[in-house]
């Protein structure tokens, strides 16, 4: 038995479109323990959202999932019987999506949408109990005067308030794992800071395990205990967040740090990464970052062999031929 809350070994997700096969996630390993926040960082198209949706059984039917192990709290997520997801999704695993505008139904009140998410998983709850739980939940996520706002429609709430409502919905059934996919990307920075603070305090109070997905190293740094950096469907580096960001091993992690705009960096000191991430990942020989890499571009093994994620000291791992472990 694994002791991790979630253990993923060699997960791949491919999409069949006509005669083409596109790889979104390619051999990903990761684990997450109770009470831990894992930040997954990567650019658009690197597979981070597909990775998250594969944990919720929300992939489209064209997706082909292959894995050695996809174990969540004793449940094999790679083989959930039809109808089985209902007792997992929203109950054991909560999800917060990126865009608070489209994640709520515009034609139904906030209160009724929250009530539904509770009633579906707790058939015995009376409407009075549900109402009380909703008010408590909304107040715990910082909505003042919640009892008077249950009959509001989503458009009457600001983006920040809607995201708070969605966080309330995601934790309404006390899940063990919360997946947050770019939950603050659509928000203004001062509101983003508030929502990050809220997620941090909820995670701590409830000892939640959280997977926090973002394109921003800075946002991940402010919330995650551990970080996994994804590039073109692969995790290229993992480890404790503070260590990876201060002493990055993989050239891509290093490059992401060098091009991260931050207050206090002198003007014009950003080091850009040449080129752009591959748009479609087909069959790849060698390292998928090598075209943009300033370390391994000319190394023979980088051209011929795709590096695998190797364990290094101190709970760190890295997938790079040029890094000596």
């Amino acid at each position, binding site marked *: 038995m694994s002791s991790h809350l979630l253990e993923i070994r060699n997960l791949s997700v491919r999409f069949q479109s006509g005669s083409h096969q596109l790889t979104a996630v390619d051999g990903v390993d990761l684990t997450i323990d109770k009470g831990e926040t894992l930040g997954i960082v990567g*650019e*658009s198209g690197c597979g981070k959202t597909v990775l998250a949706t594969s944990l919720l059984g929300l992939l489209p039917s064209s997706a082909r999932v292959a894995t050695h192990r996809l174990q969540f709290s004793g449940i094999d997520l790679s083989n959930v019987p039809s109808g089985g997801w209902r007792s997992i999704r929203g109950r054991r695993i909560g999800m917060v999506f990126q865009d608070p505008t489209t994640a709520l139904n515009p034609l139904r009140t906030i209160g009724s949408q929250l009530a539904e998410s509770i009633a579906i998983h707790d058939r015995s709850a009376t409407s009075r109990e549900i109402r009380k739980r909703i008010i408590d939940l909304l107040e715990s996520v910082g909505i003042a005067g919640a009892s008077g706002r249950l009959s509001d429609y989503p458009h009457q709430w*600001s983006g*920040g*308030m809607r995201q708070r409502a969605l966080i309330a919905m995601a934790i309404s059934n006390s899940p063990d794992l919360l997946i947050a996919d770019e939950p603050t990307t659509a928000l*203004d*920075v*001062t*509101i*983003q*800071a*508030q929502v990050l*603070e809220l997620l941090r305090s909820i995670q701590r109070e409830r000892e939640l395990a959280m997977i926090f997905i973002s*394109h*921003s*190293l*800075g*946002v991940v*740094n*402010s919330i995650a205990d551990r970080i996994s950096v994804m590039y073109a469907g692969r995790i290229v580096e993992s480890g404790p967040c*503070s260590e990876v*960001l*201060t002493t990055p091993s993989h050239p891509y992690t290093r*490059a*992401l*740090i060098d*091009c*991260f*705009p*931050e*207050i*206090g*960096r002198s*003007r*014009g*000191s*950003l*080091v*850009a*990464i*040449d080129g*752009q*991430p591959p*748009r479609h990942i087909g069959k790849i020989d060698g390292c998928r970052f090598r075209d*943009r890499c300033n370390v391994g571009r000319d190394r023979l093994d980088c051209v011929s062999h795709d590096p695998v994620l190797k364990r290094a000291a101190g709970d760190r791992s890295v997938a790079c031929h040029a890094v000596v472990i």
Partner: protein
Amino acid sequence: MNPIIAAGSTVVTLQDVRVSYRSRAEPILRGVTLTLSAGETLGVVGESGCGKTTLLRTILGLIPTDSGVVEVLGGDPPGLKDGSPASRAAIQLVHQDPFASLNPRMTIRQILQAPLRINGYEHSASRVRELLDMVGLSHSVLENLPAQLSGGQRQRIAIARALSIKPKVLLLDEPVSALDVSVQAQVINLINDLQGSQGFSCIFVSHDLAVVAQVANRIAVMYLGQVVEIGDTDSVLTEPAHPYSMALAASVPSLRQEPRGESWRGLAVGEPPSEMMTSGCTFRSRCWVATSRCDVETPRLVERTSSRQVACHHPQGR
């Protein structure tokens, strides 16, 4: 090259400019005052709805003002109908979304040739290739459609198009916010390089203070239609005087490991008010130093040091 404007002279001036849209009860710009000097980059930073884009539209003369003075290169804004082609060519805009700002049916060659031809410049293929060189793109994209290019490549095309007719003022509206982080830095560096080599003046609008800090000589912080603080980039970032500037700086995600500005964090309480305040300071509902004076008296933008103006009754720091 450019007809040189004396360095330090003012190319854009806004004096107490008010703008409203018919669809909204409250004005969107509520007395904006700022200047852009020749050869400098002014960063304008603020959150959604603060009037950043409206500010650019006002400078371009695309919308009428309710009151106040807008002066561009010593005259009226170029305008849509009455401006001369030359005055319109002197000020150019790069939009936020490079997926929407390029005509999907035109090739890159056609996109880059159009402004040259219309403004009577040489529009040969070799001139177009020079433009591609200028923004670091391969000549092989000439006959491509925008859809065949990545977001970063498209934004380079948009910049090349804007600079092709040698404007004196370049307006950039969130030019990197639609781009991936690794590509963002390429475009930021390109804008800095081009500004150094071509010497145009530049207004760079962004919601991201850290991005603005990478390009701007001076920064204007906007909140709900007003400039609340304006000054040299370094001094505004290291010693923000307006509480909103402090909150903004503290909210920017950082890679640093030590808790940074913990005393500032989260100090901007709540959200912008849903209804516009008619008197007093508009930031007071989120401010932690507001007093009864802030309820009644609207703070004016006043000089705090020689290089800094602040609109606050209780400016922070020295």
